[in-house]
Each structure stands twice: as structure tokens, then as C-alpha cells.
């Protein structure tokens, strides 16, 4: 196997990562490691090992599910942060998103309220960045 073939195999696995457990991908990771070990060029082998380490890092995110309130707030943030529209339209959407996030934070468990409300900061800073363009 050469590096190009490794990259194809790697990309197939990387792109297929969604919400499956890390254990689900253990055979793929082992297979990619075996492929990488056969690459003769030192630079290519190192690059392959870096890619596999990237993949393993991504797979670590399967043990800490987010709370429903956090998921709702992240979605509200993503909608508000959209770059679509004029500056005036974007500011209106950002302000609506901040209202929504504040509402979500109020209904969240006390230990999570601050971390949810904190996300309004970046929306507010974006509003202030957009204001000169909206005049």
C-alpha cells in the first residue's frame, strides 16, 4: 500500500465518523495503523501516524453527551451566527438568538446556566462589529 491508498482508506473512515462509539471504529483504527506501519517513506509514515492520531482524538468525543439545554443553546447560537442577510437583518437575528439563549439558560439546571449564557457574549460582540456596517 502506498500513501495515496492509505489516504483514501483513511478518508473513508474519517468521513464516516458520526455518533458511533469509539469501540465501533477500533478495527478501522487498527487496520489503518497496520497500513501506516508498512509505509517506507519516513515523512509519509509520520504523516499517516499524525492522521490516525487526529482520528483517535475525534473519537474521544463519545463519552460526554451534552444536556438537552446545551444542545438547544448551541443550535440557537448557530442559527443566530449565520452570515446570511444584510447587517441589519443579521443584527436582528443575533438579538433574537440572544433572547432565545437567555431563555434557555434560565430553564437550565443551575450549574449549567452560566456556561449557556456565556455564549451570548460572542453574538453581542458580533452585533457590535456589524453596527458600523448597518448604518
Amino acid at each position, binding site marked *: 500500500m502506498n500513501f495515496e491508498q492509505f489516504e483514501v482508506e483513511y478518508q473513508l473512515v474519517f468521513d464516516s465518523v458520526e455518533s458511533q462509539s469509539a469501540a465501533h471504529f477500533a478495527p478501522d483504527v487498527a487496520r489503518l495503523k497496520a497500513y501506516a506501519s508498512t509505509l517506507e517513506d519516513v515523512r509519509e509514515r509520520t504523516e499517516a501516524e499524525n492522521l490516525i492520531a487526529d482520528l483517535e482524538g475525534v473519537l474521544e468525543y463519545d463519552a460526554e*453527551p451534552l444536556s438537552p439545554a446545551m444542545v438547544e443553546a*448551541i443550535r440557537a447560537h448557530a442559527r443566530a451566527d449565520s452570515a446570511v442577510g444584510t447587517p441589519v437583518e443579521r443584527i436582528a437575528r443575533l438579538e433574537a438568538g440572544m433572547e432565545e439563549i437567555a431563555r434557555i439558560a434560565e430553564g437550565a439546571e443551575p450549574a449549567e446556566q452560566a456556561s449557556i449564557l456565556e455564549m*451570548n457574549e460572542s453574538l453581542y460582540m458580533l452585533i457590535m462589529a456589524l453596527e458600523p456596517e448597518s448604518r
Partner: protein
Amino acid sequence: MKVTSQKELMAEQARSAVRISGAHHSSWNGRLAVADPARKVRGAVKWDNTIEYDNASVNEPLREMFDNARVYNQDAETLRSYREALKTVLHENTHVLAAEGTDHSDAQHAFNHTPGARALEEGITELYSYNNLNAYIDDLGLEEIAPGISTAEARPSYKQFTPAATRFTEAIGRRSGVDSDEVVRRLAVVNAEQKFRVAAEILYDNSDLPGLVPDQERDAAVRRIETAMQEPLANLGDLDKSDEDRLRRESAKAGANAVQAGAAEMNAIRAQWTAPEPSRQVTRGPHQATQQAQNNPQQTQNPQQTQSPQEAQDPQLVQSPQEAQDPRQAQEPGRGQQAGQAQHGQTGVQSGASEGAVAQSGDLQNAMRAGLTGTSPMSSARALKAGEQGARRSTGQEGPERQGPERGA
């Protein structure tokens, strides 16, 4: 410096952030504002470098913390409110950390327009302030003021961005040999406009590229890496469409993807600035080429030697675009020299010259490659005026001047 009052804390907040981070300076302008309650923010930094805090969630808990100074066994919820308030203070003070000659306010345009800038700015700022909150508490002596604050709970925010920032900095650390915590720190101490640039510089400066790319082309190469890393992080906005199990995975994938895109761009740069392997040369008279190279080894090294304009403009004589982009051309030590020899021979054969045929000069090779860097080498070109035509000679050799300006006639 140990602080004993809220007033002292507010006066020292920026200096402490500079001390623990090693930043060049804080761009805080010294002004504090109270956030409009209608805004429903805990804190923010304005684009004139003013910091504002919400009274209810930040100023009041901090006032209470000093009112209860040195009171032990405060309940967990109270300690959490102190720690959360202080975390907001460090988060805002991390936003205003800046490199020499720059300020947070310089990044206003980038915060809005640069792809991925907000995701990286918030991801890194949250990662740094969350991971270094106890260093801030120690520097300010706040464990003595609020015993238990160092171990109180204060959850991280921006969970859509921090997995990306974590994997981004880890992937850079892996490829550069720089500790990932140090990568986070270096990105935290520059403004939002400079974070991708610093990330690209870490990758570039800790690779073999400085030995391949001329110094004058470094900035263009770093810009290419910087640009390549932006788009994957810009796509974090699509998290709205992800199911909840995939949110953090998608963020982590974006962080890894960004560095992989940067690494791929580095491979393209490496291929561009590395002469092709002998086996990939156009096989015109390989025997003569090798013999010429062996007979005239200095010619491949001599930057004074020149090449005809036709040769300089013929990509087949130098390197095909495919070869220029092929990451497999990552070179082993010594390969470049072999290729240089073959390239010399090839040039000589094509030009039909004798053994004394000229090879490409180093400067000329650099100029041709620079044309592939994304910069515009001909951007300053203009039609020569009549008196300028035929007047340029690089070697000082005398020769007949060209005829007058046909195009202007």
C-alpha cells in the same frame, strides 16, 4: 499581585492576565462598563477595548466574595458563583491580550468577515481561560479571599467550539513538536485577526519548509497555510443541523480537518519548492543530461548562470503543474541535488546548447516558483515606454538595443 478588594481586582485584572499568559500586553483601555441587563450577557469586550460586565452575574458575586473574605466553608453554590464570575473576567481579559503593535480592536473586521475567525477566537479564549483559571486565582491571591474557589465547579462554555480548538491545537502540536498547551497559549495571546496566522507560523517554522522556501517567500507560504485552515472551521455554523450526539464530534472533526488542510497545503508548498525526482523528469536525452551534470556539477549550483526567456516560461522544462502539486514529492535529503542535476541537463538538451549550456539560475527558479504561490508576480507589470524598451539587461552584457516601439506606432 494579591488583591484584597473588588476595586483592586478590577484594577489588576488585565495585568494578571498578562502575567500568567506571557502576552505582550493587554489592549484593555482601562474603562469598565456595566452591561445593559437587556443584553443578557455576562461580559463582553467592546471594539474600543472597553470591558463590560453584567452586575447580577459578575459584579455582585465578586463584591460578595470580598465581603465574605476569608470565610471558610461557604456553600458550593456560592463558591460556584464566585468562580463563574472570575472565569468570565479571565475570558474577557483573554480576548484583549495582544501582540506587539496590535490591539483587540484591530480584529473587528476579521471577527465579522474572516472564515472561522469567531469559532477559533471563542474556542481558544474559552479553552485558555478555563484551563488557566486557577493560575489566575493564584496570581491574584483569591484562594485566600475565598477558600475553596480553586476547586469549586464552573463549567466550560462554547462547547460547539472548544472541541475544535482542542483538536486543532493538538494536531498542530503533533506536527510541530510544540506542546499543545503552548499552542493554545500562543493563540490566546494574539487577537482574533492573528490566530490563524500564528497557527500557520507554528506549523511552518517547525517544519522543513524554511530550508526549502526562500526567506522572501515565507510570508506568502504562511498565508497559504493560514487560508487553507480557515474554511473547515467556518463550517461549524452547520452544527445547527447536526443531531445532538454528533455536535461535539463535528466540532472535533472540524478542528482536525483544519490542520489537515494546512498540512496538505504545506505538502503542496514543499513540492513546489523541491526539484522533481530524476524519475519524474521529462526524458529528453537523459544520458546527455546525466553526463552534462557529471561534467559540470558547479553549473547546477551557480546562481549567476542564466536561462533563456523561452526556457523560463516553458513549464515543461521546469516542472509540470501536477508535479508542483504532488505531495509525494516530499523529498529525502539529497534528492533535491540529484534532481537539480537532471534538471540542468534537461534544460541544456532542450535549448540545443553545447556542453557549456546554461542552467537555470537560483534566482530565476525562485521567480518561477513564486508565480505559483498565489501572489501575483506580474501585478506591477506595465507596458514599457519607448525609452525603456530593450534597456534591461541582467548581466550587464553589451548587445544591440531593440527596435523602437512598434506597439506605440
